[in-house]
């Protein structure tokens, strides 16, 4: 019978060590060099097991009286004989064999150009850990600047831990989505992407704080600030999406952009509905920075006062608008201020 199967040899962490095409049965498996599939594992016998086609034509494996036996899957029970469907696996010693029909279906290819650069940056576990660790260090550093009393180290660490916990929840959701899409969970990569985005956001806020300190009257500064934050968010979303979908780069960016816009709209609507037209607070640019005061953009006292005078017409029209709004409300509906 012309049955063709593929035997994958994987280590205990399921990393692929070898793939072997099998066209003839039975197939002898063991450490000895006279086997058809030779395993480099000291817990495997010289002649450990044999693969064969049983009477029903199903691939099966039989233990040849080995020291450690064979197990169903990674952690299954010991068994002298097992039947293996395509994609099924069996463990010998510390080696896992996965058996696949040559016609076993595989996932669609992910086009090379579609992989997010950010995701590629943290693809290896080493890079991912560096990203996560770096981001946590940055969180701790930023928190420690803002603490002025004892127990500073503990407070800084707990601030970073809180950030990490939130990022883990975020990465966990993406990992579940990734798994549900039939791919890898990739929790560590998602966590690294989220950490990088957080660090970038933190640095951006710090940088714009400096900009605000240097140049409080720079036109369009707040637009620049929000644009940077949105860009970081879009890049992160796009990187997450590249891991859980096969969307092209353009479509991914469009999706992330749409989600960001949606969030902005949601926040804006929330603020508008929540906002009363009156606010008794002072909202001024309160950034003070330890370096660079000598190169900050300055004006003369006279210019400051003439800039201040320019708000006067605005306040006057605000007062008129407020009065008009109150006049149009029936008296019964005005807020009660009586005793």
């Amino acid at each position: 019978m012309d049955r063709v199967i593929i035997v994958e040899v994987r280590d205990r962490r399921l990393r692929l060590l070898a793939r072997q095409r099998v066209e003839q049965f039975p197939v002898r498996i063991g450490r000895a060099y006279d086997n058809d599939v030779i395993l480099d594992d000291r817990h495997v016998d010289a002649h450990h097991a044999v693969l064969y086609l049983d009477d029903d034509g199903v691939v099966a494996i039989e233990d040849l009286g080995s020291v450690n036996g064979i197990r169903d899957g990674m952690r299954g029970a010991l068994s002298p004989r097992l039947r293996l469907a395509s994609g099924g696996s069996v463990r010998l010693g510390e080696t896992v064999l996965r058996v696949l029909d040559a016609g076993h279906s595989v996932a669609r290819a992910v086009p090379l150009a579609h992989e997010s650069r950010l995701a590629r940056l943290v693809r290896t576990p080493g890079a991912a850990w560096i990203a996560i660790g770096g981001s946590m260090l940055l969180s701790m550093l930023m928190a420690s600047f803002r603490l002025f009393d004892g127990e500073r180290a503990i407070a800084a660490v707990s601030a970073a831990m809180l950030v990490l916990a939130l990022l883990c929840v975020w990465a966990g959701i993406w990992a579940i989505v990734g798994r549900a899409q039939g791919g890898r969970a990739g929790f560590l990569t998602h966590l690294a992407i989220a950490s990088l985005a957080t660090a970038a956001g933190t640095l951006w806020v710090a940088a714009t704080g400096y900009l605000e300190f240097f140049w409080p009257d720079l036109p369009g500064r707040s637009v620049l600030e929000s644009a940077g934050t949105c860009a970081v968010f879009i890049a992160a979303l796009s990187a997450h999406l590249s891991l859980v979908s096969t969307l092209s780069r353009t479509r991914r960016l469009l999706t992330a952009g749409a989600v960001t816009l949606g969030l902005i709209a949601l926040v804006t609507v929330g603020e508008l509905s929540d906002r009363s037209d009156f606010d008794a607070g002072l909202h001024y640019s309160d950034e003070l920075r330890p370096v660079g005061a000598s190169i900050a953009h300055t004006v003369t006292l006279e210019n400051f006062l003439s800039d201040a005078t320019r708000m006067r017409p605005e306040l006057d029209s605000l007062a008129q608008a407020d009065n008009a709004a109150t006049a149009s409300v029936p008296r019964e509906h005005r807020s009660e201020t009586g005793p």
Partner: protein
Amino acid sequence: MTSITSRVPRLASALLALVLCGAPSLSAQELSPGSASVFRQFGNRVVKIEISENGSAAKASLGSGFYVSPDGDVITNYHVMSQVVHDPDRYDARIITAAGDTLGVTLLAIDVVHDLALVRSSAPPAAWFTLRDIALEQGDRLFSLGHPKDLGLSIVEGTYNGLLRHTLYPKIHFTGSLNPGMSGGPTLSASGDVAGINVSTEGNQVSFLVPASEALALFERSRKPGFAPVDDFLAEAGRQILAYQDEYLDLVFRKPIPTVRIGRFTLPTEPASFFKCWADADRSPDQPYETVSHQCSTDDYVYLSEDQAAGTIELSHEVLSSTELGRFRFYALYAREFAGGDAPLWGDKENVTSYRCVTRNIARKAGTLRAAFCARRFRRMEGLYDVVVRAAALARGSEGLVTTLTLAGVSFENAERVTRRFLESITWTE
């Protein structure tokens, strides 16, 4: 420490209009034979003024007043009438005479700066006071009449203790117990002349009167040919504040502002005699920095409503220093202090707009300041603004200054003028 951080009644002494929310008992006054005769002779010239909201039958607040002409002219405090001034559609005033008659009230004129109002009752009185200037000496016996806590017309005996010095305009220091509800009532000399009008108290027999000469001026103004009550009394109050303010701000800035040295900073202090100043330091051993604060504010203000005052000026300096904190941490602390907490002036949307602010780094010969100028307008009084200026010194080293200038109810021009003087007078050594 007193500061203008909150609603008006906490600013200084309590005003005497009674907002009704339960009336505790009043201790019996010990009266000399003189007061019995004053009460008998002049009691029928004093009235009770009740303010009520249209919708509710019960009164919202009450004060006192007294007849000054055979036509039914009554002098009282502006603050007794302020609800009617602010919302004439919603509040009504009525007079209850000594005989128990209830009469209607028309507002004729106000003097918001001296907290006086002139109203006319719908029927002429049986008896009235004739206002005139009288000379008093410290220790003179005075008799105050009014309706304390709605317990009926009462008389309080006390002494004249001269004019106050720490106020924007002259006020009589009356040693006697004035109580809420007596606002607007007359304080008489032994001869039965009006010496002053009951206005406020700080408790423990420390009470204040508006001199009768101010009431006379207001009354005479209403007697001039061609006089007619204005349409909008609130706008009139705004105009009066603006006119008055030019005068007193001139007093503040006629001379160079005195300065005080804190650390390496030289800072403006006590700009005029009607300011009061305090200083304090916080050197707690468990915090790695020190703060020294210095504040000056006017002890007095012009009452506009329960929620709004004008004419207050406050300077507040805070010098921060640390030998323990590194530069980055010190500046994080410094920025936190500069950001400040709540806005120093209370306000609600009925009375003021939201604030608008301008922030700049200001280069001066004496060093660079980062300053924010924030202003909001009185909604119904054209030309009046609340202004808060907050500045931080961009100085070297781990020593910083956060300073705040608060101006309530000023014109924009005056705000600008005061801000310039204030910021010019801040210097330090590098």
